[in-house]
């Protein structure tokens, strides 16, 4: 268990103020924040490269705030991987291993799917391959916590999904992971816990469901952007793909990969009307308005269509349709506005 208590740190261009969070063993902890929110600094604080001006970091109850980097058992994978360019992949992976355990490098490489790369130099690897090697090198350290800085940011889509599934595999083998990213998809696809970092503070922390369904601040809502997200299963048949969750099914893009997934769609893609709208490409539901709330760009209406969805409507439309709690309307959204994020594989 890692406990970060009230950590503050002032650097040249920004500050972290009163950061508090806890990571339990086995957690996949995703720290969400815009670029420049202090995510990398936070990881370097955990590694011991930066000293906090106040606060405590505890590992299993022991204070490690001022422990030197080499003794912390937190292995970081930097965004640029920082592989040693003058060493082969094998030598890179073996760097953290004591001399008598060097042969383990080969097994670590095959665990991350990099066995065929062992004799190559980092300069010849693709981004995805470098990421695998960097993960193996960090895992060789047998870290209590694996720290990942935007591990999929520079990857193309296929490489990203294969790295995600590798990360999931590593986590399910019991490895505690802290992963910082600006991409809410990462959190949906991987996290067991999410914290949102904004201007040097943690503005919300919890399970992905808590953070994405009940954003505590406008910032979280804007940042995550999407209160409509659901976990379920994609089933594809002759006539396209359906996403099923909690007894409700809706149409998603035909190229969605079948299996467990998250579906997200922005609240401003949901249109409301009094009459049943036409068009086959749409998901159309009868909806009961549960509550409404003023949002920056209009009215945020919570609708019950069997599941709760959010619809963002303009103020004039809300007046026209007389959107208020208890009202029955038709809600529609296009299959193409639903984004499917595979949660397994």
């Amino acid at each position, binding site marked *: 268990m890692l406990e970060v208590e009230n950590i503050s740190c002032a650097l040249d261009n920004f500050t972290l103020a009163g950061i508090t969070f806890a990571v339990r063993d086995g957690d996949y902890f995703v720290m969400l924040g815009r670029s420049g929110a202090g995510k990398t600094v936070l990881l370097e604080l955990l590694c011991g490269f930066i000293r906090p001006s106040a606060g405590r970091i505890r590992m299993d109850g022991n204070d490690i705030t001022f422990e030197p980097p080499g003794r912390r058992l937190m292995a970081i994978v930097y965004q640029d991987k*920082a592989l*040693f360019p*003058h060493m082969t992949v094998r030598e890179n992976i073996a760097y953290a291993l004591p001399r008598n355990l060097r042969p383990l490098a080969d097994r670590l490489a095959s665990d991350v799917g990099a066995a065929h790369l062992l004799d190559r130099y980092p300069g010849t690897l693709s981004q995805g391959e470098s990421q695998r090697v960097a993960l193996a090198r960090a895992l060789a350290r047998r870290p209590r916590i694996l720290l990942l800085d935007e591990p999929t940011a520079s990857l193309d889509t296929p490489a990203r999904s294969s790295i995600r599934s590798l990360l999931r595999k590593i986590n399910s083998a019991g490895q505690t992971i802290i992963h910082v990213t600006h991409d809410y998809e990462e959190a949906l696809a991987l996290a067991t816990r999410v914290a949102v970092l904004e201007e040097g503070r943690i503005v919300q922390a919890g399970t992905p469901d808590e953070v994405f369904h009940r954003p505590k601040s406008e910032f979280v809502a804007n940042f995550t952007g999407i209160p409509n997200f659901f976990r379920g299963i994609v089933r594809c048949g002759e006539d396209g793909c359906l996403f099923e969750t909690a007894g409700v099914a809706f149409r998603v893009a035909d190229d969605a990969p079948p299996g467990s997934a998250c579906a997200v769609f922005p609240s401003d893609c949901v249109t409301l009307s009094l009459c049943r709208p036409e068009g086959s490409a749409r998901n159309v539901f009868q909806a009961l308005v549960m509550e409404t709330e003023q949002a920056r760009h209009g009215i945020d209406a919570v609708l019950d269509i069997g599941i709760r969805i959010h619809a963002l409507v303009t103020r004039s439309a809300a007046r026209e349709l007389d959107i208020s709690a208890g009202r029955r309307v038709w809600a529609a959204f296009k299959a193409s506005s639903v984004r499917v994020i595979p949660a397994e594989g």
Partner: protein
Amino acid sequence: MQTGSFSNSKPGLSGFELAAYAAGALVLLFVAAPLCSLALRTSLPSLFETARDAQVLKSIRLSLLTSLAASLLFSIPAIPFAWLLARRHFFLKGLMLALIDLPVVVPHSTAGIALLSVLGGRSCLGGFIKRFGLSVIDHPAGIALAMAFVSLPFLVNSAREGFAAVPERLEKAALNLGASQVRVFFTVSVPLAARAILTGLVMMFARGLSEFGAVLIVAYHPMTAPVLIYDRLSTYGLRHAGSAALLFLAVSLAVFVVLRTIAGGRRHARS
């Protein structure tokens, strides 16, 4: 030579380029002409004779060995110091950087006299050494010190630039993997800065080899090659000195080329 990015056709030389080529030719001529003249004025028989002259050979060997010893010995403290200069900010760092460069601008006779005032028999340090019946004045050790004094900036500056070009993140990654600072230094920093360090060593060695002024003041005897050439010139005149000078030039050039090739030959596939 392609000058425009718009077309692949080769445009003619502009007037400015022509002038620049002419200027370049002039500079090269200025460097090459004296050396060529030296080579042409020296007859082969006299060169062979000089090559068998034990005194000349001894002086060349002394030059090579003392400069090599100075470079290797001083690299032991200079390389970690260069890393420190590249990585850390500390009190009076600017002053230290200026101090490192100082020997380049100090007249070499001044450098020699300054060294003499520290190492000479009547100085504190010289007196201390003398108590053991030793003296670095007129001794190869003194020669090596004089060479190091004037040539150290080449190693420190080149190594410092080499270390600065190594991404600090690689050192952090190595520390994070549990390596000690010493291990990080020897397995990550030094190998990645190796080219710059070797280049610096070669430059330091070459500079030490050719040093005359400071060496002359600290140790006229035993004679290094530059001192011997001067001695021959003032005793026997240009003809005699010329063949020794040419021989030393040839040896220096050969060693320099070999070392540059070794230093330049190490390349890595960098990411």
